[in-house]
């Protein structure tokens, strides 16, 4: 599989890109910091024992560069079978509440710009007759929750967008995979108190890869979060107002 990968340098993206490279997928890395991308590219090469891994800069804060970045990936790989987006912005709710400009930036990156990137990717995949678009949303988008109001709102929008793509374009060969990780212990969540069922990025990556291969439209990872969120979605408002979750 030829995979354009936005966000492979850290966290779950790092774990997933390693699994893909290790099983022989051709990966092309996109991200903000070219020097950091190059280090990740060397890592994937060393772990897979295969040929060179390419990289190009792409910043979710600069939508103007999306097309060129995906062009670079297509040119290098000779087409794309899948595009994976694990990149995103995160900040704690209290921080976002204090700084509206910071909140605006997060909403723009996690919703508007991510969707715009996906639009570019979708068109390219459809032009080739289909492919897989894998996007990391979050369980934070499942319900309005006190600790993740703004982040969750952006992810809720993103999840809906992906759902719509799936409804409209699956018949034309576009498979969207909306990944909803629960709390996963990565540098993004460092400093937050891990709840029960906190996951490990390598475990998440294995679950996600299976979902990609099956073309599963929605995947919770680790899978226990499907049940956790089922309960959360069923809780009445008066309970949600009282609990801190």
């Amino acid at each position, binding site marked *: 599989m030829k995979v354009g990968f936005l966000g492979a340098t850290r966290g779950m993206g*790092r774990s997933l890109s390693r699994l893909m490279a290790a099983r022989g997928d051709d990966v092309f890395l996109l991200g903000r910091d070219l020097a950091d991308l190059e*280090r990740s590219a*060397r890592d994937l090469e060393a772990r897979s024992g295969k040929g060179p891994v390419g990289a190009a800069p792409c910043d979710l804060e600069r939508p103007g560069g999306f097309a060129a970045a995906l062009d670079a990936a297509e040119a290098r790989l000779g087409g794309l079978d899948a595009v994976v987006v694990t990149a995103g912005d995160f900040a704690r709710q209290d921080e976002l509440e204090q700084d509206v400009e910071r909140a605006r930036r997060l909403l723009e990156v996690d919703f508007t710009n991510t969707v715009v990137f996906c639009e570019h990717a979708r068109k390219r995949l459809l032009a080739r007759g289909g492919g897989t678009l894998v996007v990391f949303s979050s369980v934070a988008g499942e319900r309005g929750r006190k600790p993740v109001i703004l982040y969750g709102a952006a992810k809720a929008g993103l999840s809906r967008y992906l759902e719509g793509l799936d409804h409209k374009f699956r018949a034309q060969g576009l498979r969207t995979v909306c990944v909803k990780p629960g709390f996963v212990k990565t540098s993004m969540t460092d400093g937050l108190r891990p709840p029960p069922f906190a996951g490990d990025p390598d475990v998440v990556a294995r679950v996600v890869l299976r979902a990609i291969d099956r073309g599963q439209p929605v995947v919770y990872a680790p899978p226990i979060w499907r049940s956790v969120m089922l309960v959360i979605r069923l809780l009445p408002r008066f309970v949600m107002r009282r609990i801190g979750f």
Partner: protein
Amino acid sequence: MNAGSDGTLSGWGRVPVAGREVRSEDLEALTRDAVLCRGLGRSYGDSSLPPPGHPVVAATPLADRILAFDAATRTLRAEAGLSLRAINRSFLPRGFYSPVTPGTQMITLGGMVAADVHGKNHHRDGCFGAHVTRLRMRVADGRIVECSPDRESELFRATVGGMGLTGHILEVECRLVRVPSPWLLTETERIHDIDRFIEGLKEAGPRWPHTMGWIDCLSRGALMGRGILMKGRWAEPHEAPRGVPVPRRRPSVPFVLPGWVVNRWSVRAFNAVYYRRHVPRVRRAVVHPESFFYPLDAIGHWNRMYGPRGFTQYQCVLPESAGRGAARRFLELLTHRGGASMLCVIKDCGPEGIGLLSFPKPGISIALDIPIHDETQSLVDALNELVIAEGGRVYLAKDQLTRAAHFRAMEPRLAAWTGIRRKWDPEGRLRSAQSVRLLGDHP
């Protein structure tokens, strides 16, 4: 690992102190203000724990990228948080393995350098530091420095085995070894007493690159030090099964067992069964390298077995100059004091390596687990006094309870090492709970 959500951190022995980890993939940024790095938390005592005055450690395991590998020179360069397990699993299928491996593969490259780990092949291949060609470090004044055996060599030699106290290790370059097959050929032998055991290790040394023994440290008298001697070497292609060994999923100790589970009688029963089940006296097998090198990794959270108060591991080396009776004297003191250890490992050590504070020296190393109870401190004190009298020393990666005066008496090399450490860190910024306890660093 052992990072409690209650604001405590502990070593593998599960004796907690106040502290928390800060994690990031970006080790350069992470170490800018750090006083200590911590890898996977497998050191038993307080080596990876923060000093009381600065209860934060920089956790390295997310910085785990391989930066380069050259098959021709077998040279690997990687970020310091890369685990030995990742190295082995990536490179074994391609015919390479770590040149030295401790008893767990849940350890980072940085930790392997900081503790200058040794393995079953110490008598032949020395410590891990002997295979390290270069280190990239952030030193106390914030600069980033590269050191190697011939560049800033003082810093290099003080860092290998320096318990992370001379600077933060950011990247490690080392040489892997080529292995003829991904399988190990082993021979295990039942041995009936300690004297025969030491002879057995010495005899096996020239023929087997990997040797070590498990001893039943509760048996007394004529049977004192009975146990099982394990020898291994990489199998040649014609001796090995086809295919690459597949890592197995592991069971786990799901919760902390009550403190009474591991006691003198349960250990005695375990030891007797383990010893007697080894029939015939000598057995040969071709095994998975993980089951030979890391038998305990097969059980997740095995450290929960020792109950809520945790445990300490005591490991010392008794030098050749102490004579062959030293190991027997050590075991006599241990059994006399009633120390019950499920795990008691014996190994012969080769020459001292380049690390100025590295643990091994020619002689016999003995390692045992001791559950923490009210008498553990006085037991460790008594063992340390014997070790000092024999001219031996203890392994800092295991230590939790040694007193500063005892450590100074064991370590004539300490002054030279401290001199280099002070040169690179005049204000004594980098420190750990262990360095506060043993070296008198300011808390």
